[in-house]
């Protein structure tokens, strides 16, 4: 929505609500993250002109919330909706209890922008499990309405809403649907004023309509680039690039760099196999990060033998003309042959270290 669009939205809300110049609307930044309200991402407008200027002030800037990380996310869209006077804000979410493999409804009378603090006190949130096949029982729906302090017609609306949430969750392969705030208006309507929904990436193949909603502007450019070629990448704060096969080993590699007194620039899982193509592409991504002063390659060769990986590393680093020092730690199948290949190549910037602990210390020293 453009600033002009926001102004028009204000006008149409003014006409709909019939409150004339008393009307106010919210101009909300649309982000793939919560915590907007507290971060200044929701502004109030009392006129069409103000709606336009508020929209203009949000659009194009980056908003940093408690859920976005330090870089924040770009605001490429805003939503204008009616500003509603509410007595109290409720919170409802449907999520997954991973350990018990069951869906779980969370309900709290203390919704609103402080929900993260509220969540820290477990008693403030009612947890109601729901059967995956049968949905909520009537008794369970009663308990939820009661936990939210709702009675009469509003309680019935709540039961309908909760049933609908369960249907939506299952039919869309969601992993989280969160309504915050859920409010009761002066005229006893139950309204969801804002919602956040997280989908299961692994299920998108059966939801083409939802997959089309992907907004790549809300994703970190390097993460996106890596993701497209089947590499898991997450940017971190430091200056040591990491290239690892396997997610657990990649996290552990970040950890050991920290233990050695350094700071990793990224998490990177090139995949369990670590083929030459993937390794080359992974270097490409690491080198796009200007902060990287040294690289640690940590590969456990299983089916993919260490001598193949060593050849791949030599090829990739030659092709890409890598200037920063690379510490390589190989372990696993044919490791001696792999280490010998690296040693024989006599590349000044390619340092083979057998032990993971020593490799971490070496790369930390080189990055200083």
């Amino acid at each position: 929505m453009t600033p002009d669009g926001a102004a028009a939205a204000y006008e149409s809300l003014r006409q709909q609500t019939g409150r004339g110049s008393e009307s106010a609307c919210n101009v909300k930044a649309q982000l793939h993250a919560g915590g907007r309200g507290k971060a200044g991402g929701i502004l109030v407008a009392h006129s069409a002109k103000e709606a336009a200027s508020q929209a203009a002030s949000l659009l194009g800037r980056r908003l940093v919330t408690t859920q976005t990380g330090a870089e924040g996310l770009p605001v490429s869209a805003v939503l204008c909706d009616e500003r509603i006077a509410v007595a109290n804000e409720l919170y409802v979410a449907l999520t997954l209890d991973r350990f018990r493999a069951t869906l779980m409804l969370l309900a709290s009378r203390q919704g609103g922008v402080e929900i993260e603090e509220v969540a820290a006190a477990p008693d403030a949130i009612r947890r109601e499990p729901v059967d995956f096949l049968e949905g909520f029982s009537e008794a369970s729906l009663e308990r939820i309405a009661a936990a939210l302090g709702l009675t009469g017609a509003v309680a019935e609306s709540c039961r309908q809403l909760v049933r609908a949430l369960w249907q939506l969750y299952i039919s869309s392969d969601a992993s989280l649907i969160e309504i915050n705030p859920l409010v009761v208006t002066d005229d006893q309507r139950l309204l969801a004023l804002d919602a956040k929904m997280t989908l299961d990436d692994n299920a998108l193949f059966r939801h083409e309509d939802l997959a089309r909603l992907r907004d790549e502007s809300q994703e970190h450019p390097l993460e996106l680039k890596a993701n497209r070629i089947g590499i898991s990448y997450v940017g971190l704060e430091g200056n040591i690039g990491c290239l690892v096969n396997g997610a657990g080993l990649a996290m552990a590699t970040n950890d050991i760099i920290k233990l050695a007194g350094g700071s990793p620039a990224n998490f990177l899982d090139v995949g369990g196999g670590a083929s030459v193509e993937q390794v080359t592409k992974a270097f490409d991504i690491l080198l796009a990060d200007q902060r990287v002063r040294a690289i640690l390659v940590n590969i456990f060769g299983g089916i993919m033998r260490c001598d193949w990986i060593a050849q791949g590393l030599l090829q990739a680093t030659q092709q890409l003309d890598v200037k920063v020092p690379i510490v390589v730690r190989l372990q696993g199948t044919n490791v001696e042959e792999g280490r010998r290949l690296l040693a024989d190549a006599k590349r000044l910037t390619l340092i083979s270290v057998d032990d993971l602990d020593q490799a971490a210390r070496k790369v930390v020293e080189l990055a200083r």
Partner: protein
Amino acid sequence: MSILIGKDTRVIVQGITGQAGAFHTEKMLEYGTAVVGGVTPGKRGAVVHGVPVFNTVKEAVDATGANATVLFVPARFACDAILEAVDACLPLIVIITEGIPTLDMVRVRRRLRGQSIRVIGPNCPGIITPGACKIGIMPGYIHQSGRIGVLSRSGTLTYDAVYQLTQAGVGQSTCIGMGGDPVLGSSFVDGLSLFERDLGTDAIVLIGEIGGTEEEEAARLITTGVTKPVFAFIAGKLAPKEKRMGHAGAIIAGGRGTAAEKIQVLESAGVTIIESPAAIGSTVASALRKPGLARR
């Protein structure tokens, strides 16, 4: 001694005619695993590395007397294939497949309720009893038969840890990759209970990571129901919030599931925390050498 699998385990491979299925069938056979059949719908009569292929799990079980299955079936067909194995009442189902929709696993877990079927995975390297039986994709030679049980949410990190144990002279009774997905067939709690009862296991190594409550539930059990020493390494201390770290299940969501939290509860439960991923083998080896530490 070992848990779940041994010399008498007879395995069928679902998805045996696919590239990964065929490749790892050969590797499992080389290790000495009794791979007795394979299943790929429509491929009855085919033979893969000497192993006969059937159209359905039931057919394969009837013909071979299999008592375990391993799945290399593509993610979008995996749910049906798992349920087929459940219907055939196979007591052990190992799912290697990565990328299965989470709600499909919720459906599987719902179906398993009240049944004594053990599901391992998905998104896991499998399970191995060194020297006896390997069901999965892990390199066999890094393992050595012995008395330490290993439970892990990871793949290559587990290989690294197991190889460290082997090189430090510490053999393993059974190693299980539980899987990297949010909803798993079996938990650390299940594995700990099995190892606690196993006469062939003296101590247990847990390799956990951020996300979910596996480690917290494990800590609760360890406090009350595990007498054997437990060692743990938890990966992902530097993981930012709300970022998926490679595994679908490795995510700090809503501020919960951090490595610090997990380490704290495990430590309170009396678990020996291993800080460095390079010190897993040496820590366990030196603890085992000290008299008096064999039991808690």
